Every structure is written in C-alpha cells, then in structure tokens.
C-alpha cells in the first residue's frame, strides 16, 4: 500500500521535483565522499604483477563499462513504463539517461583504448567485447540523434521507447554474433582480458569505485531529469502562450 503511494506520488512531476530537491544535497555529499574514498583506495592499491601500474585504469574502465550497460537497461525498463503504463516520468527518465549512458560508454571506450595501447600495443582491436561496446555506443548515438531531432517530447517518447526495446533485444544478439565472427576470422591473438584472479587489494577499491560511479550516475540522472521536467514545463507554458492569443 505504502509502496503504491510512493509510486503514485512520484508520478506527479511536481512532487518528484520537490523530492528531488530534498534528496539532491544528500546524494551529492554521499557521491563525493564515496568517490574521494574510492580514489584514495585506488591510489594506494598495489600494482598488478602482470599489468603493472596500468591496472589503475581498470578502476575507471570497469565501472564505466557496467554503467554503460546499466544505462541501456534502465532505458529499456523505462520504455515499458512509457508504452505499457504510460507513466509520465518514464520517458523523462529515459531521455535523461541517454546522454549519461552515452558518456559512460564513451569513458569505457576511451579508457579501454588507453589501456589497450600499453597492454596490446594498439588502441583498438576488433575484438568481440570491444566491438559490442562500440555497437552499444552507436545505439546510444542513434538514441541521442532521435531525441535531438524531435522537438516534441510526446512525439519522440514512444519512438525512443521502441528503439530502446529493439536495441535491448539486439544487444545480446550482437554480442553473440560478434563472438562468432571473431572466432571465425581472428587468428590466435594478443587479446587476453583480465588474467590474474582478482586480489582483494584490487577488488575492494574496484567495488568502491563502482559504487561511486553508480552514485554519480544517479546524481546526474536526477539532475538531468529535473532539467527535463522543467523543459517540458516551458514547453507547455509556451503552448498556453500561443493559444492565448
């Protein structure tokens, strides 16, 4: 009962804004604290015996990769909200998540590349995992282009939801097909992910950084959702203005 109440309360953008404004300071503080602590732990984490100090890139790379995937997952869930329940905040959330998800995917790609150079001797290989992240990035770009193109949020909301769902179905298919593609063409190569079983001295900072990134994602999401709600408010006020003449 109480849960449904909360859900209904959140459905109202005005209440959502009020709640967001109350939560934001705390979330900001928490994010900063966890992030700083995480970075501190990262700074004092030991080097990997194989990869040396470059393992420090992992603390950015892996959380970014997780959040890149989580971002699309969130958009796919929101898509259900838009199409099935017509929840007013679902599209706001999806739209707010798209640029953030794209940014984390970008971070994953860039840090991965910068890690690949010392490890594999090249910035980029057409390996299965890298490639599927690249396709994910392309999908994000398509989603951003879609949002960019449609001025009218009501118009783009459902289109975006359908693209999010189709993309969500497609990502595992891509992962699978790219794996297959690679085993066909790629000769035994330099590519070897990870390597050592992860030692707690590295695992713990990694998990803390992952938590910090997740908090950061949420923080940005809330901020961006707030903007999106305001943007829609501006829109509807302009509509009123146009109709009032």
């Amino acid at each position, binding site marked *: 009962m109480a849960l449904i109440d909360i859900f209904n309360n959140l459905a109202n953008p005005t209440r959502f804004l009020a709640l967001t404004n109350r939560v934001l300071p705390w979330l900001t503080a928490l994010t900063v604290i966890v992030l700083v602590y995480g970075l501190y732990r990262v700074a004092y984490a030991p080097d990997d015996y194989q990869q040396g100090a470059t393992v420090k890139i992992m603390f950015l790379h892996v959380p970014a990769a997780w959040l890149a995937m989580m971002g699309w997952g969130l958009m796919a869930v929101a898509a259900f909200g838009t*199409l099935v329940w017509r929840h007013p905040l679902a599209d706001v959330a999806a739209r707010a998540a798209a640029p953030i998800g794209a940014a984390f995917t970008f971070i994953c790609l860039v840090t991965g590349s910068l890690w690949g150079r010392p490890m594999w001797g090249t910035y980029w290989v057409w390996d299965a995992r890298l490639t599927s992240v690249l*396709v994910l990035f*392309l*999908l994000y*770009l*398509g989603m951003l*282009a*879609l949002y960019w*193109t*449609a001025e*009218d949020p*009501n*118009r*783009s909301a*459902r*289109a975006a*939801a*359908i*693209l999010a*769902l*189709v*993309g969500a*179905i*497609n990502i595992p*298919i*891509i992962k*699978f*097909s*790219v794996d*297959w*593609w690679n085993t*066909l063409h790629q000769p035994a190569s330099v590519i070897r992910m990870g390597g050592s079983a992860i030692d707690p001295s590295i695992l713990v900072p990694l998990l803390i950084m992952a938590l910090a990134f997740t908090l950061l994602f949420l923080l940005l999401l809330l901020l961006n959702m707030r903007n999106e709600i305001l943007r829609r408010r501006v829109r509807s006020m302009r509509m009123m203005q146009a109709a009032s003449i």
Partner: protein
Amino acid sequence: MNALLALLLRDMRLATRVGGGALMGALFYFVVVSMIPFAIGPDLNLLARIGPAVLWIGALLASLLALDRLFASDHDDGSLDLLTMSTLPLELTVAAKAIAHWLTTALPLIVITPVLGLMLNVDMSAMGFVALSLVAGTPALTFIGLIGAALSVTLRRGGLLMAILVLPLTVPVLIFGVAAANAAIVGPAPFGPPFTILCALSLASFVLGPFAAAAALRQGQE
C-alpha cells in the same frame, strides 16, 4: 485479403511508375559498389578479398536508404490516416507494404549482383552463393529497416536519421551475410551455418519488424 492484395499491388505500381523508387535501390547499389574500386585502387587481389564485404555493405546501404519514405510518403499525403482506418490490423498493412518494397527494391538489386561481382573480380561460381546470401539476408534488412521507416514518420524526418538508427541494429545480419558469402568463396568454414543463421534472422525480423513498426506508427499519432 482483397484489401491487402490491393495495397501490395498499389505499392508495387507506385514504385514502378515514372517517379517511383523501384530501381533507385538497385541503381544506388550499382553506383556505390562501382565507386569503391576508385577509392581502393586497382588491386585485383585486394578487391576479390573484400568483394563480398563491399557487395553486402552496398546492399545494406541501398536497402536502408531506399526505405526512407516507405511510410513518410503515405503520411505526407494523408494516405496513412486512411490506411489505419481500415478493418485490417495495422501489422498486416505494414507487412504488405514491406513485401511490396522488397519485391520492387531488393530483388532488382540481387539480380544485378553478378555483374558487380565481375567488376570486383569475385569468382563467378561463388557469385551464386553471394546472391543466395543476399536473398536470405535482405528480407531481414527490409524488415528491420521497416522499424526505422515507421520511427522516421513519428519523428517527421527520414534520410540520415533513419540510417543512423537502423544501421547498428543490422550488425548481425551484416556479419552473417558476409560470413556466408566468404564461406562460399574462400572457405574453409562451411556455407551452411551462417546461411542458416541468416535465414533465422530474416524470419525473426519478419515477425518482429511489423509489430514494432505498427506500434511506432500507432504511437506516432500525435
């Protein structure tokens, strides 16, 4: 049924009339593929090596870009409104349009593939397999592109946006299409498995495409 047939025939007639788009796909395919040797340079071995890839990329671009105005033209002149007011489920209407499009656009493209294969120095005997891989794979492109065509009506823009949205979704088709073609040409992997997967992808998108496209069109009624 009568209604569906009427729609299929109308769309094919529109495509083949003066001003219709029937041969545009095939022509674009022809032009794009013929441009590639100019960029690569006249290295016959290299051309033969990447021939199937070039043919598939060309077919992919031609299929998607030709789909651009599949629904948009009906939207712009008000036909789409009436199409949705029929007793037929929109999914069937949409599928009929897609089939008409495949018949008038993808089929001619496949027919001219052997000629292009010659220019790319692809072995004649293998060309049959490349064409076969296109026959199996282009329906998937059309039916995935269908989603983009419907979205581009909703968004009121076609062209590049549609290609940007749809291209990433076609990655599996491209991979297995080229894999099947290459298997036929250079081996050593057999032609069968990638070809089967290609057919499966086509079947899956045959089901999924019209549903997603009809949903997009319905949702787009703003």
